């Protein structure tokens, strides 16, 4: 428990540093949001107007004052307003989070539905044709750009066959193409990982002793080997939940799916600082949580770590 507390403190410190770095960075970055904001209306702008808005937004204050003000508002759950939509950033992000989460989890489901059976079969029939097939799938899956795969799917299912909507959000059908795209791209890694992990656990002593105890092959495979091989899979899983989330950014833009990723990409192109900063903090928080969850799931899945951890603390 003590260790967990220390880790939590470190992570909070990490978020704090992150917020400061992102703040300073953004202030130093090129591109003037004030001019951009005034430019939206497409009328000619005077220097006075620019100056006025600059004062209004507090851009003329010293940097540390700006950061301090921002920090105070942050603890009041106020991340500022988007320059573009004039909506509170927190509200905008929270509105978009469910769609992104839906996409993330459905992609994960697709990924599992593909990776688990293929990986298991490849381990069971090592060096048979299904194993070779899984190798080819993994190799191609790791090489294909996900957005291109998405474009091809769109072309096939929406344009040629006309059975699935290509863009937007709303029904379950809208979710199908994006999550299929992302899920397939991600599954490639897991197929091989699950296979090698299963093969490794099948060679362990506890499997041999289970055999000696006369347990059935099926039971050994699914209850012992499968569970044991989940530990490395979960590790990579935690890491790649992040890349899954990174992948959703690309996929959201591709399918015009209104999630957090699309929001931030639009904000980046328009230099909408408050939204970018809100996104960074959201992601920081997310990364911290994932790290904690992965740590916890180790304990649950691997009795060795669980027992050792229990002795110590």
């Amino acid at each position, binding site marked *: 428990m003590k260790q967990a507390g220390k880790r939590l403190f470190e992570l909070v410190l990490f978020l704090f*540093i992150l917020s400061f770095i992102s703040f300073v*960075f953004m202030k130093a970055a090129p591109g003037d949001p004030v001019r951009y904001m005034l430019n939206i209306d497409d009328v000619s702008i005077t220097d006075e107007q620019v100056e006025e808005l600059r004062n209004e937004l507090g851009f003329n204050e010293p940097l540390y004052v700006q950061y301090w003000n921002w920090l105070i508002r942050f603890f009041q759950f106020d991340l500022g307003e988007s320059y573009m939509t004039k909506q509170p950033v927190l509200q905008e992000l929270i509105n978009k989070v469910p769609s992104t989460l839906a996409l993330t989890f459905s992609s994960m489901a697709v990924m599992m539905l593909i990776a688990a059976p293929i990986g298991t079969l490849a381990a069971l029939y090592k060096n048979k044709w299904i194993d070779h097939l899984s190798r080819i799938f993994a190799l191609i899956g790791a090489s294909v750009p996900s957005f291109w795969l998405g474009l091809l799917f769109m072309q096939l299912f929406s344009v040629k066959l006309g059975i699935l909507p290509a863009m937007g959000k709303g029904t379950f059908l809208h979710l199908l193409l994006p999550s299929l795209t992302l899920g397939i791209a991600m599954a490639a890694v897991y197929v091989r990982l699950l296979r090698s992990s299963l093969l490794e656990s099948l060679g362990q002593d506890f499997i041999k002793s289970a055999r000696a105890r006369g347990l059935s092959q099926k039971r050994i495979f699914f209850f012992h080997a499968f569970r044991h091989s989940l530990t490395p899979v979960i590790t990579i899983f935690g890491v790649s939940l992040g*890349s899954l989330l990174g992948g959703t950014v*690309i996929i959201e833009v591709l399918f015009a799916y209104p999630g957090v990723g699309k929001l931030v990409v639009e904000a980046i192109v328009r230099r909408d600082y408050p939204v970018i900063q809100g996104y960074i903090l959201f992601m920081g928080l997310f990364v911290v949580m994932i790290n904690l969850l992965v740590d916890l799931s180790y304990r649950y899945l691997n009795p060795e770590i669980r027992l050792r951890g229990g002795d110590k603390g």
Partner: protein
Amino acid sequence: MINRLRTTNSVILLMGLFLIAIIIAPFIAPFDPNQVNMANRLKPVSLEHFLGTDHLGRDVFSRILAGAQTTVGTSFLVLAISLLLGVPIGLVSGYIGGRLDRILMRVVDAFMAFPDYIAAIILSGLLGPGIFNLIFAIVMVKWVGYARLARSTVLTEKQKDYILIAKVNGVGSMNILRRHMIPHVLGNVMVLATLDAGKIILMIASLSYIGLGAQPPTPEWGAMLNEAKAFFYNAPHLMLIPGLAIMVIVLIFNLFGDYLRDYYDVKNQNGGR
């Protein structure tokens, strides 16, 4: 089939051919990749234009060739900078150890905590869209892997007797690093770099596709796909070719990386992401 591909030299051959093709690309391109010709737009595949023309009448084949230099060249640049930054930091950190090592590794851990795509998106978000900012962003994401790998290699080698003997004989730290450490480190690093090359190419293309990397009219494969998307119905061939180009080059790098890994028999150590 893949096994045979890996064990024979065909991968190396294929890789070499591709690299040569990329280097001589501007000399074999039949047209100027940025030459706009509105009378000739969205033309299908023909003898004059092998791969047709795009929405501004530019020759797609020439743009693919020029795009190879942007996409692959950029990813090599990213790799080179990441190596030059990560390897020395890892070497020094591992060799000197102590407090310096602890601080540096804390920094590395903080970088590693962020998933690479998210970190790259955040950094290019802070810096603004553009190919140079994207290069910077990906370097920031990638150098840590090399620092880790270099450090862990040094830590293993440092324990061995021949280093002790070298020290006893009064060989200086610089010489030990140069003569004994670097050769070991470079072998491991090369494998990781080849496996990374494909990932970096994918990253550059993906981020350019969503508008954070190369800006039009720069010929870049991801950006080309972005432009092609608007002509989805009229000219599907426009989006087929750049994607295929990305896939083939990444596939070659991945095969080559697998081959190198088997050759050196290095397992994807700490550096791998």
